[in-house]
């Protein structure tokens, strides 16, 4: 990063010009043309962008692999596809978060690009208050998602039955999630 250069570069000429300026011969000004105070952290953006694209390509590859097996009617007979799919379970959220980091870090030092700098858009709330609320959110999210992950893993530990049970006794119908109809065996609201 100190040397401000990319090792092992693969270069496609002209494509960047077309995407960013909609002109085959448009000029894309490099990061080094801006003063250092107006640049984002290029190492974070460099890696988060590649993680995002890599995750996307991995998902495409698994999709293509499963399609190929499907065409050959071997979709359920290939344990390595199933293992890979389980291993790739979290990859969607990894791609989303990497993409999000790319956007947010890449926009720095601006909140609204070119108009409002992040330092100018901070609220007058004291740092201690922001820190306390952040700590509270971290604690609450770990507690809630910890419990959620525990219940999900327990649910995943049970093999799926031929006919999934409906609501357990006493459990409420909801406007979202479970469908009330077959469980009730009566007209809604009866």
């Amino acid at each position, binding site marked *: 990063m100190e040397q401000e250069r990319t090792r092992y570069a693969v270069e496609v000429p002209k494509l960047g010009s077309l995407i960013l300026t909609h002109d085959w011969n448009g000029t894309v000004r490099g990061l080094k043309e801006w003063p250092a105070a107006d640049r984002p952290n290029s190492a974070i953006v460099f890696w988060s962008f590649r993680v995002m694209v890599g995750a996307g390509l991995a998902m495409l590859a698994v999709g293509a692999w499963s399609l190929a097996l499907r065409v050959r009617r071997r979709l359920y007979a290939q344990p390595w596809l199933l293992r890979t799919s389980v291993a790739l379970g979290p990859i969607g959220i990894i791609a989303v978060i990497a993409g999000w980091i790319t956007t947010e870090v890449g926009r720095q030092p601006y909140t609204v690009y070119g108009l409002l700098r992040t330092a100018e858009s901070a609220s007058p709330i004291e740092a201690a208050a922001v820190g306390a609320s952040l700590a509270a959110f971290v604690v609450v999210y770990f507690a809630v998602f910890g419990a959620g992950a525990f*219940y999900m893993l327990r649910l995943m530990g049970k093999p799926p039955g031929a006919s999934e049970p409906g609501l357990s006794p006493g459990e409420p119908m909801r406007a979202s999630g479970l469908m009330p109809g077959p469980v009730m065996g009566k007209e809604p609201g009866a």
Partner: protein
Amino acid sequence: VMHLDLALIWAGLLAFAVLAYVVLDGFDLGVGILFPFLPDEKQRDEMMNSVAPVWDGNETWLVLGGGGLFAVFPLAYAIIMPALYAPVIALLLGLVFRGVAFEFRWKTRRGKFLWDFAFAAGSTLATFAQGIALGALVQGIPVSGRAYAGGWWDWLTPFSIVTGVALVFGYALLGATWLIYKTQGPTQQQAYRFAHVTGAVTLAAIGLVSLWTPFLSDVFRERWFSWPRILYVAPVPALVACAAYVLFNGLRQRHELSPFLASLALFVLCFVGLMISFFPYLVPTSVTLWQAAAPPSSLAFLLAGAAFLIPVILAYTAYSYWVFRGKIELGGGGYH
């Protein structure tokens, strides 16, 4: 072409969203507040089932109110949110716990008591924080230029604690009268008792806050006690007295729906009272709704979306309440 005051239309829409939030989430938060006073597990299931199909829809209005304030009155949002930072964060964390309790409570037998606690404590905390936020807004927020100029404990005063406690009793009243309407048998009988107590405390709190508010600012005092304005505002306390009569008469005669409607009317009247005190300020008494409004092009663009969205929300909300109408029944096989 008639000139439309878009900022005023938006203020009306957001006032409606906030009122809808208060009365709708009010009764399901109230059910959570009453949870500790009904230790029987079957009755707790019954209480929770009475709000399970609608509580998350009820909270839509909080998102609409908060998101609308951000988009339409950005200056008011930028001043109010830092001023109410701590209570707003407490409100959100309380809602997180009571929200997941609806799902997780049914996933465990050993841990059920924990989610019962999360439901009750989360509901009470969220309500108390809302009441404190309201009190802090009413008592006044120091503003300098276009920003909040106070400290981050300014929201904590005797007045805001009174409004916080008052709202806990007010939502508990909504919850109790909702349970009267939706349940039967022993749960309903206990709900009648809860409604008597919470109704009496709520009315006392309405009286206390109404008498206290005019002393907080000359603007409020002028609104309520100057001649001839006192004539225009007098119907509000008179209607509060009528609603109180309908409430207690309904409780005494064991009506099932009128106590709930009377409690809703009390909240609507308190909200009207607040609007009389506030208008045209969004941050009393420093920023008016016209000063806080986004540019007219933004207001018009957002209004086009709201003109489509709000009728859709109203329609599916009404449909949801219709589908889940009637009494909750106890017993095996879940909710019949």
